[in-house]
């Protein structure tokens, strides 16, 4: 569709670091640290490593530490490790065997549910207050 979409095919294997990605779709095996605007792990996809992304759709398996604005775990998802999210959607059948933490950024004051500009905040070296 659009040209700025990276695809890792079903029989491809990546090891290393991936950066500067806008949108990436993974059907193969990736062992990497990744920063992306949108990450989609397909049903046959397998991702091991750290993820920083605004939007993550997981249909395959994931293991690692994920920090994301929105996470959608579809029915074939298998997640291990740790996920930090602002919004999370789980389909029936999704398997989460992981630590699930809401709002990985600076803690939001209770009652004030404004979670804006995750990227700008994240770039400015978030202080880990956990």
């Amino acid at each position, binding site marked *: *569709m659009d*040209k*700025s*979409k*990276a*695809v*890792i*095919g*079903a*029989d*491809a*294997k*990546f*090891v*290393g*670091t*991936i*950066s*500067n*990605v*806008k949108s*990436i*779709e993974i*059907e*193969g095996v990736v062992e*990497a640290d990744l920063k992306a605007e949108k990450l*989609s792990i*397909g*049903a046959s996809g397998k991702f091991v490593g750290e993820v920083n992304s605004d939007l993550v*759709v997981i*249909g395959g398996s994931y293991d690692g530490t994920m920090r994301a604005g929105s996470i959608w775990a*579809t*029915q*074939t998802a298998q997640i291990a490790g740790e996920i930090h999210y602002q919004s999370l959607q789980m*389909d029936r059948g999704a398997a989460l065997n992981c630590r699930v933490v809401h709002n990985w950024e600076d803690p939001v004051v209770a009652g004030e549910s404004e979670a804006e500009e995750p990227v700008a905040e994240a770039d400015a070296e978030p202080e880990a207050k956990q």
Partner: protein
Amino acid sequence: MFEKGKKEEGEEATASLIDEDMRITGSVTSSGDIILAGIVDGDINCRNLVVENNATLTGSLNTTEAVIAGNVKGDVVSDRVQILDTAHFEGDLKCTGIEVEAGAHVAARFNKRRKSKSSS
């Protein structure tokens, strides 16, 4: 429900695309095809590889067929290599068939390779 059903026509599921802005450090192994439009620091092993114009690869290549239109610095082991006129290539080539277009920047050592895949 999931995007599986709406795979674009004409796009093989086995092909991987490394887009323009993307940067990879590490190795890439695939039994399918790879289109590289971004930057890779590392090795690539695959069937068919296209290094597009403006793409950069630093590292060695092991492919069946490679088309190079971008910048490649490293060693290439391949059955066939095609170096287009927009390419900048630097390194060793070990191939059964080599094609270099007029205008390509090539600084390479050419080695004729026998058909067998073993090499050193």
